[in-house]
């Protein structure tokens, strides 16, 4: 998982498909990122904020009771314990530092579940930046508390009423806003998606998850686990995790929502500035992803995932809403951890396949990308409604 070069290619995927108005900004961002990432001072600053403010390193927790039940050895990389409750903070701290370095006073962001929006608003508050978050109208209703959180943190939340009124159109609105304000505004994209350098840059900022987990597995298991699992919306927590294990013999498995399984059901195409696997119809119209988890409702996956799938280094599976609710409850009941619905997808696949596709006795690492507080009200309704 190296440098995708000046054109931002991961095999056939990636690239930079944006209007000319935005090309100079993408090129400028690439230069700024490469300079910063080659600067030891930037790394020191990034890592020190993540340690003293973000709560890193996050621990790896061994799940004894659930492991016994499943007949495997299950470890969780606890991104739910990071500040703001998910892995999203790693990326936004990196991008906020970069925004400051580029001399821009304002960040914009898109959000689905609201986690990236909350993380962006948090980083903006920390750095004294202005922040506007674009969120689909459907999601502002599903995740009303996160809207209030962002406002508490001083961000402006703009409700997106165009198109499907979910994550896909929040990205479109953020890109449109960026075109109009690019001179003083950085677009803090929330996953390993979009035009180059975003998929590369966001992976580098999330690499810390995999780097830590690799060392922690080394200490616990004496090597890499047999299987490494992460949920995939755009794929940032998964790519960060995979980057720590890609050079080991571990199986890498990304789990999508069955209602938005772009790695499995998608075909190559171009949207949001990148070439990747996308859910689309015969004509090339992009289809909406739909699951119980707003954070996974992305019609595409990051281009590097499309590439890792194409070369067979990673596998992509999916979990249904029903399986996910089961996994959500199982982790709460057996381990005292309420997971976000997104990583509950990864767990759902593990529960479904333990003793089958995952041989009994395997060691399995799951990145628990976020905590479930934001989802508790929704799950309560779903469970009360008898599903």
């Amino acid at each position, binding site marked *: 998982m190296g440098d995708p070069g000046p054109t931002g290619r991961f095999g056939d995927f990636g690239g930079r*498909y944006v209007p000319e108005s935005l090309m100079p900004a993408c090129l400028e961002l690439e230069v700024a990122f490469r300079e910063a990432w080659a600067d030891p001072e930037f790394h020191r600053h990034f890592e020190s904020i993540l340690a003293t403010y973000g709560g890193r390193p996050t621990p790896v927790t061994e799940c004894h009771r659930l492991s016994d039940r499943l007949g495997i050895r299950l470890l969780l990389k606890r991104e739910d314990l990071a500040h703001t409750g998910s892995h999203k903070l790693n990326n936004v701290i990196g991008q906020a530092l970069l925004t400051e370095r580029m001399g821009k006073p304002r960040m914009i962001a898109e959000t689905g579940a609201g986690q990236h929006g909350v993380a962006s608003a948090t980083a903006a508050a920390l750095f004294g930046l202005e922040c506007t978050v674009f969120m689909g109208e459907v999601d502002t209703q599903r995740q009303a508390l996160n809207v209030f959180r962002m406002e508490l943190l001083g961000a402006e939340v703009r409700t997106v009423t165009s198109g499907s009124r979910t994550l896909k159109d929040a990205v*479109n609105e953020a890109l449109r806003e960026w075109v109009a304000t690019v001179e003083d505004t950085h677009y803090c994209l929330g996953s390993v998606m979009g035009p180059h350098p975003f998929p590369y840059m966001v992976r580098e900022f999330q690499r810390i998850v995999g780097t830590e987990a690799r060392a922690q597995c080394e200490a616990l298991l004496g090597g890499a686990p047999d299987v490494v699992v992460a949920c995939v919306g755009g794929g940032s927590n998964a790519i960060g995790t995979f980057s720590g294990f890609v050079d080991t013999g571990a199986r890498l498995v990304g789990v999508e929502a069955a209602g938005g399984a772009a790695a499995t059901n998608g075909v190559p195409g171009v949207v949001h500035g990148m070439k990747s696997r996308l859910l689309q119809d015969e004509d090339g119209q992009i289809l909406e992803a739909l699951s119980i988890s707003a954070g996974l409702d992305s019609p595409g996956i990051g281009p590097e995932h499309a590439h890792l799938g194409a070369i067979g280094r990673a596998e992509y599976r999916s979990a249904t809403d029903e399986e996910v609710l089961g996994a959500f409850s199982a982790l709460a009941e057996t381990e005292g951890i309420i997971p976000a619905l997104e990583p509950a997808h990864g767990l759902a696949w593990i529960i479904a396949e333990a003793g089958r596709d995952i041989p009994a006795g395997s060691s399995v690492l799951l990145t628990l990308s976020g905590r479930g507080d934001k989802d508790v009200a929704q799950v309560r309704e779903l469970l009360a409604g008898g599903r």
Partner: protein
Amino acid sequence: MPEVTGELGAMERSLRARRDAGSKLVVPYVMAGMVPEWIEVLQAVASAGADAIEVGLPFSDPMIDGPVIQAAGLASLGRATTVHGVLDALAGAEIGVPLVVMTYYNLVFRTGHRRFAASLRESGVAAALIPDLSIEELDPWAAAAAWGGVETVLMVAPSSPQARVAAIVARAQGFVYAVARMGVTGERRALGADALAVVRRAREGTDLPICVGIGISTPEQAAEVCEVADGVAVGSALVRRLLDGEGPEGAARFVARFREALGP
């Protein structure tokens, strides 16, 4: 300045001839399929004095379009518009001026570069404008377009450094689309402050006709920008009238006002 070699495409030939004869160019934008009588709209707009017409192919995720053209695209998709339906309808119609299809790259990529180019050609469409296809990613389409005899219109933006402007206009065909402002399509009260500068910068590298678009809403703005530009592209202001139900006659009246303001 690049030398003009070989056979010119229909768009470039036609627009150069008009420009060289001293006329200013009016290039209206109409979203294909947005109203049932959209072909009649194209014909009416051509009769009212358009020099070429941009025909929008609706895409689910139009990155550089504002609310009006988004609404037209949704209306069109809601009427089950498809790439092939549009091109078949164009193939069977006599419009009278060269057409440039404006759409996003995924529709081209999904159809297949060569198949898309061949379909445009068969439908009598002269050119394509694909705003999310930067010159860095242009090669596969450019090769298919050359093979199919389709011209590729390219955009220069206020943010493009001079070296990029030069690289873009060197590859542009038909005309150069100069983006008047940093932002998405939509009506604006005033001409973008950058509009004249971007035309002048494009002019340094090409003698192709240069049309200004994005935000051009009134005949007065068109006249102002045409003091340096060769013409204007008019989108949202026209599309809004069509969304309001003004039909082919209303569209023709609106385009005629631009023709009048810019002279014959």
